[in-house]
């Protein structure tokens, strides 16, 4: 499940950060910047864009701490802002073409010689994930890793639950196609055409 759910920020730190305390703000950044950046990188892939979005997310969070009223986890609130920002970017028309290319723009982080089979598998999975279309990649990450429900994803994308399920199925069909030689598992023959 998502790393966000394990993150705790003490109420006292939040209270001090609300008053503009620099150390408290830095503590929040220290504990949440990595999961936020990882989430954004998984959704938008492009490192420079992800970095800009990371800054935007934290500026918004730290300026609006008074809007968090303690209902639900603070990390969950932060995650919802990060997801919203990343999806806004995905929807922005000027970046549509960049997103179609984004898998080509990220250098492969291969483990290199001497890596274990598990590391090689991770590299393959990472590459396959980056190769997915942005929309399908976002939905597979939000659903399978962050634990969003289809209804929540549908709401985020302003679309139907069926849309979310179809995109998830599409993503997994592609991942299976690209990774299947490594799994050795025979795919099922679809009974219907909606896979």
């Amino acid at each position, binding site marked *: *499940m*998502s790393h966000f759910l394990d993150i705790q920020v003490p109420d006292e730190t939040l209270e001090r950060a609300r008053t503009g305390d*620099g150390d408290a*703000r*830095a503590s929040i*950044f220290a504990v949440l*910047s*990595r*999961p*936020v*950046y*990882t989430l954004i*990188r998984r959704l938008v892939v*492009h490192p*420079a*864009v*992800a*970095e*800009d979005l*990371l*800054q935007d997310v*934290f*500026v918004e969070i*730290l*300026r609006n701490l008074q809007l968090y009223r303690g209902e639900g986890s603070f990390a969950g609130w932060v995650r919802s802002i990060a997801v919203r920002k990343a999806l806004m970017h995905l929807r*922005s*028309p*000027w970046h*549509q*073409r960049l997103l179609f*290319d984004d898998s*080509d*723009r990220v250098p492969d982080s291969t483990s290199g010689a001497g890596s274990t089979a598990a590391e090689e*598998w*991770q590299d393959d*999975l*990472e590459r396959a*994930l980056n190769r997915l279309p942005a929309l399908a990649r976002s939905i*597979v*990450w939000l659903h*399978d*890793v962050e634990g969003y429900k289809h209804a929540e994803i549908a709401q985020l994308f302003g679309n139907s639950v069926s849309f979310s*399920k*179809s995109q*998830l*199925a599409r993503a*997994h*069909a592609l*991942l299976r196609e690209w990774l299947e030689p490594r799994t050795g*598992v*025979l*795919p*099922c*023959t*679809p*009974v*219907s*055409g*909606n*896979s």
Partner: protein
Amino acid sequence: MHPGIRELLTLRDGAPVAARIAEHAKACEQCRAEIARLKTLGTQLRQLPGFAPPPRTWIAIGQALSNPAPAPDRLLGGRTVALAAGLLGATLLSALLWQSERRQVIATQAPIAADFGEARAESLSSLVAQSQRLEALLRDLPRPAVERAATAATIDELQARIQVLDAQLSDTQGGGLDRAQAQQLWTSRLQLLDSLLGVRYAERAAHGDFGAPNSTGEI
């Protein structure tokens, strides 16, 4: 007949499916194996390593926070909503102009970083020419008088990376790099320039500086 991947994912997640599908999957070894594979893949996705944020990010955030934030009451005012709607429209218009212009350049000249898979296979002279064209587009894009700290930091970083590449490429003339290495560096330079152009244009749009295309079709 086996269910499709959509139904198998539904079964993996423990959500309800049609009775005939559930019964089939329960009895079918192949479907059970596929559901197990999908479960394992989900676990492996969750176990992928995270990304460390760039160290300079916190400094840029600190700079942004030191600038006054827009007052909430202004954001809710009717005039501001109208202004925001206008800005949004203008942003979309300018973005479309930018995309249109980019497509025009891509369509009428050699591809500009549109497909880096192809770019990698291109000659050095073609990569250099594409870099020069992107630099010309950047030169024609004025920087705003007031910049967002986060965007400025990103631009600075991209420019710094380009400078590093330029320093490495200068070794080519001295025979320090082979052709493949030089080609890789030029491809990277092209990618960075393309990213920089995107960020610069977004910055320009955010500041409401929406110039019409000039006589050459450039923004």
